[in-house]
């Protein structure tokens, strides 16, 4: 692995200014993706996974969103300070994204061909001939194993099934040969057998093209299947990061632990009660550790101070005071 990370998010804060006040949605999120690495970002609805990625691509609506602090370094350059025209070259060619709902991601009134052509044109400064454009359109459609590519180009999204639409979105994301692919819940809106196909396709393409990937999901099983390293998010903060195998073998943060317990297992044995309480209101987030009102191990310090990241072993770090004294220097 290269020593300089491909993407490094440092202490990112995102606030939304709304009628009732300021929603402190991201509260100091840090995140690293190395070249060729597959990183998972796990958390439940509303924990800020998508906000983090939208901030990275600078597609958050501002206002109401504001970024009062933090850096997002992509190949060493701060995306938050980048000029718009240069940023446009990063989007698509540097970083591209696959969204959860392929139906909403495609424009219903244009054919697949028209939509891919726009991406192909945008993917390079060079003037391409008609046949070059055509080749660059067909190539990614073949790669995602869509049947009959020529006919596919003339189809409208409504003529395709959900699984095929997601394949089209993946093809579009790959047109410009990005370095980093952000996949936001790529299979969630699909049936489980179709989701399995999409995830295996994604896994294969990532291997073949040596892409770096951020996989955002709330399904722990998917992360286990596809990633090397996992970040766990809760209520706008990172709570734990570890190698995938290590995390599933030895989840340390009480939230991660509760989350894993809550997943019904194929081996049976009943379902745990899950985690009591609900995610906090971002208008008045709890002081100290944002998880403390729901935590079974809460201590006085948790209510007052925000925990730092404590390294417990090689690449396993956890933001919880329970592990402050167990910290080891790696």
């Amino acid at each position: 692995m290269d020593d300089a990370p491909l993407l490094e998010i440092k202490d990112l804060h995102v606030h939304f200014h709304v009628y009732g006040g300021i929603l402190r949605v991201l509260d100091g999120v840090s995140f690293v993706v190395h070249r060729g690495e597959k990183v998972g970002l796990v958390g439940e609805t509303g924990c800020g996974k998508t906000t983090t990625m939208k901030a990275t691509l600078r597609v958050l609506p501002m206002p109401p969103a504001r970024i009062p602090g933090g850096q997002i370094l992509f190949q060493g350059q701060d995306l938050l300070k980048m000029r718009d025209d240069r940023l446009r070259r990063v989007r698509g060619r540097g970083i591209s994204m696959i969204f959860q709902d392929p139906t909403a991601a495609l424009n219903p009134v244009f054919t697949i061909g028209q939509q891919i052509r726009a991406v192909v044109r945008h993917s390079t400064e060079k003037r391409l001939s008609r046949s070059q454009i055509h080749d660059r359109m067909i190539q990614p459609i073949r790669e995602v194993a869509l049947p009959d590519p020529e006919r596919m180009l003339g189809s409208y999204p409504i003529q395709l099934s959900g699984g095929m639409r997601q394949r089209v979105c993946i093809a579009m994301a790959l047109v410009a040969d990005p370095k980093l692919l952000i996949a936001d819940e790529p299979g969630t809106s699909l049936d489980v057998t179709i989701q399995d196909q999409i995830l295996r396709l994604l896994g294969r393409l990532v291997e073949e093209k040596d892409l770096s990937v951020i996989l955002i999901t709330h399904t722990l099983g998917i992360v286990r299947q596809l990633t090397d390293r996992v970040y766990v998010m809760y209520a706008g903060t990172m709570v734990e990061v570890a190698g995938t195998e290590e995390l599933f073998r030895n989840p340390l943060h009480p939230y991660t632990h509760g989350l894993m317990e809550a997943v019904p297992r194929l081996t049976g044995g009943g379902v745990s009660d899950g985690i009591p309480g609900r995610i906090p209101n971002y208008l008045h987030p709890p002081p100290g550790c944002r998880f403390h009102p729901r935590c079974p191990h809460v201590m006085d310090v948790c209510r007052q101070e925000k925990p730092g990241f404590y390294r417990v072993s090689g690449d396993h770090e956890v933001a919880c005071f329970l592990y402050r004294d167990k910290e080891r220097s790696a």
Partner: protein
Amino acid sequence: MADILTFNDLKKHFVIGQEGFLRREPITVKAVDGISFAVQEGETFGLVGESGSGKSTVAYTTIGMYRPTTGTIRFRDKDLFADKKRPLALRKQIQIVFQDPGSSLNPRRTVAQILALPLRLHRPQENVLQQTAQLLDMVELTLEYMHKYPQTLSGGEKQMVAIARALATEPSFVILDEPTSALDVSIQGKIINLIMRLQREFNLTYLFITHDLSLMRNVASRVAIMYLGKICEIADAVEFFRTPYHPYTQMLLASIPVLSEEEEALKPRKTVSRGEIPSPVNIPSGCSFHLRCPRHMDICSVVDPVMVEVEAGHSVRCHLFPPS
């Protein structure tokens, strides 16, 4: 155990349009196309299927939102569709909890008003306020919730109110149509355990509809798998997860993302998901699964297989298991 609800060759077809110029032919969706099974008193019967398999149509027909095209549903020897309008006494017995509590609760009514409606209709002689309080207590909500509106509740709390509403009529049979799939996993457990506790306390029978097989493993006593309007496999839950016979069942199980090696070992290894779910307007000939089936034979595209009991209580509809 006695059967409480019996489906006999139930079909529900919807006409969605017409095609042809000179001779207009109706276009039909065969949402449910001949299913037969019986739910036993006190059990949790799991109905599993992907979108478009017809599992929700089964639910809606059972509660009387649709009338069957052909076939019958019997509730303790009473035909649910004998009368033009289902009698109140029968409606009271069969209740439903919908998937999305955000849209199944009226946003303009308080929790107390939502719960009072079925109470007034089905239990007019009782004290509504007292019963409302009791219902809230049953689903572990405090009395403060009475005057709240649904939009101020979390997803889990809304679903608790929906469960309380279903139980307001003192039913014996409750249909749970994906009761937790709109919720986060950390909330799901609490709702599931509440549902299971209520079943023990009030001796309820459940028809539990879900697409989540891992969840099914933990709640159901028996499981049926639906594909394009038909049941392809029914078995006792333990047996079902140990030896799934139907190639579609194996494909479903092989597709589940799991958290541990122990679970990985339970998944059929050779089966890999392929193909798309066909449109229910254009169901393939013969066995509707044959286009995706890794083990399809010549006969599969021509003849629709019949349900065969392979072992006691374990039936499969597949040509690999011919009737003897």
